[in-house]
């Protein structure tokens, strides 16, 4: 088993190395003629751009600042979205009528891409960071609610009764039994929610760059406008790296400390 995993890992490394070689070859041979420089900048240029993004940035502002802004809005939105999802899903366990209504709202809103609502949202908030936060909340709230609610409804009756037996009622039962018992659902909600929020955030920043709070999406757009394609590719790398950090630095550890540790994986 271990051996197979290791082999799989090396195959992936070889594949990545191969792709880099293909890329570099395409760049050196100038396969696309005059546009080659833009489509396939040499790896060295991308590497340099990667460093320059952080060292110099654009218009005297380092990429760090852009990343910081994006992450701040993302964090705020995620926090609001997750808390709202927990509160509203919790309310569904109290009132059946509310659950009916909220299920409908989830089903409808989940179909609506956040970016499609941007025009209306901008009329409400103006072009301000609030738009991005709204979008992140929208991206995370519905999948998170769906999952948490499914999780709450799937909690085995025996846990609920054991909880009531030892004196848990209402909110304490919700926090003491329903929430931990549905942790697998909560985590898959987090995964879906975060992935959507991250994509939505970058799209929104690219479409409506907010000057007062410039983020990663805006940075890519500025690179595009100025035909700094090596910098643009380098920024895409940054986006991937941030995604990996969230995945393996936050989500996987949360999973290991809960579902895995408690033997609750489905």
């Amino acid at each position, binding site marked *: 088993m271990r051996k197979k995993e290791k082999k799989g890992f090396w195959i992936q490394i070889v594949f990545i190395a191969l792709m880099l070689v293909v890329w570099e070859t395409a760049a050196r041979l100038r396969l696309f003629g005059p546009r080659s420089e833009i489509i396939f900048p040499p790896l060295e240029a991308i590497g340099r751009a990667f460093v320059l993004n952080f060292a110099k940035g654009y218009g005297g502002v380092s990429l760090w600042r852009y990343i910081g802004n994006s992450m701040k809005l993302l964090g705020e939105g995620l926090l609001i979205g997750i808390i709202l999802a927990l509160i509203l899903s919790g309310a569904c366990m109290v009132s059946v009528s509310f659950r009916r209504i909220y299920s409908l709202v989830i089903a409808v809103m989940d179909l609506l891409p956040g970016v499609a609502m941007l025009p209306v949202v901008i009329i409400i908030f103006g072009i301000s960071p609030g738009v991005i936060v709204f979008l992140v909340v929208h991206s995370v709230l519905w999948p998170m609610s769906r999952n948490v609610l499914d999780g709450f409804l799937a909690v*085995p009756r*025996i*846990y609920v*009764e*054991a909880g*009531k*037996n*030892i*004196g*848990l009622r209402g909110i*304490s039962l919700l926090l*003491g*039994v329903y929430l*931990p*018992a549905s*942790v697998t659902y909560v985590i898959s909600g987090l995964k879906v929610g975060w992935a959507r929020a991250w994509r939505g955030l970058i799209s929104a920043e690219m479409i409506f760059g907010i000057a007062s709070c410039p983020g990663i999406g805006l940075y890519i757009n500025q690179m595009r406008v100025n035909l700094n394609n090596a910098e643009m590719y380098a920024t895409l790398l940054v986006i991937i790296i941030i995604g990996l950090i969230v995945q393996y630095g936050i989500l996987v550890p949360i999973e290991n400390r*809960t579902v895995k*540790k*408690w*033997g*609750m994986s489905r």
Partner: protein
Amino acid sequence: MTEKQNCILRIDNLIKIFDDAETEDTILKGLNLTVQRGEFMCILGPSGCGKTTFLRCIAGFEEFDGQIYVDGHKCSVPGTDRIMVFQDFNQLFPWKTVEQNIQYPLKLQGLRDKDELRRISEESLIKVKLQGYERYYPHQLSGGMKQRVAIAKALALKPALILMDEPFAALDAMTRSELQEEVLRISEQEGSTVIFVTHNIEEAITLGTRILVFQKGGQVVFDEKNPIKRPVTPLAENYGAIWEKLHRALHSEDGG
């Protein structure tokens, strides 16, 4: 002590109907019963006669008509004075360690002192012979060990009543008789009052100080003190006779 003070559970005209069932059958048709402090009451009965339903009414998990008094207080919702030990091994919270599972209910009762909590959980784990497993999570335990923890958890709370619904039915014969011995020893040491539902005549004779047989509708067709002195062995004088009696009471329905 007078008879009245010694009565820990009194049930007056307990009636249970499930509204959602297809047949609006009355599962418990006006059951009356009193249980004395320190009694180990075993309930036998054919499948579907309402034993589980009866325990669940006492525990407060079901709505019912009639009155249930525990220690003189009327009960209709769950409370820590009546702790249920289920048949299902998965009654412990998987997100808490063995120790936390035992301490959590105590914390909910307002006990904050860490040393005291530790002392109580250790003590009750020793009673079920599980010392050293404090830090284990339920999924790391066998079925028998989980049932031991569930019993330890109940003991730690010192409830007026421990309700056990075929807690050992899903265990192998050896683990089962081991656990029977321990429950017996513990209940004698602690003087706990236990209502113990089982399908197994031998188990009822081994454990019970009093044995009941239910028939359909929660009708009590047999209610006698267990005449055999503990520890009960199949070689005891009256064993065969009482076994016969219980067997006949159990099959009285289809016998005509």
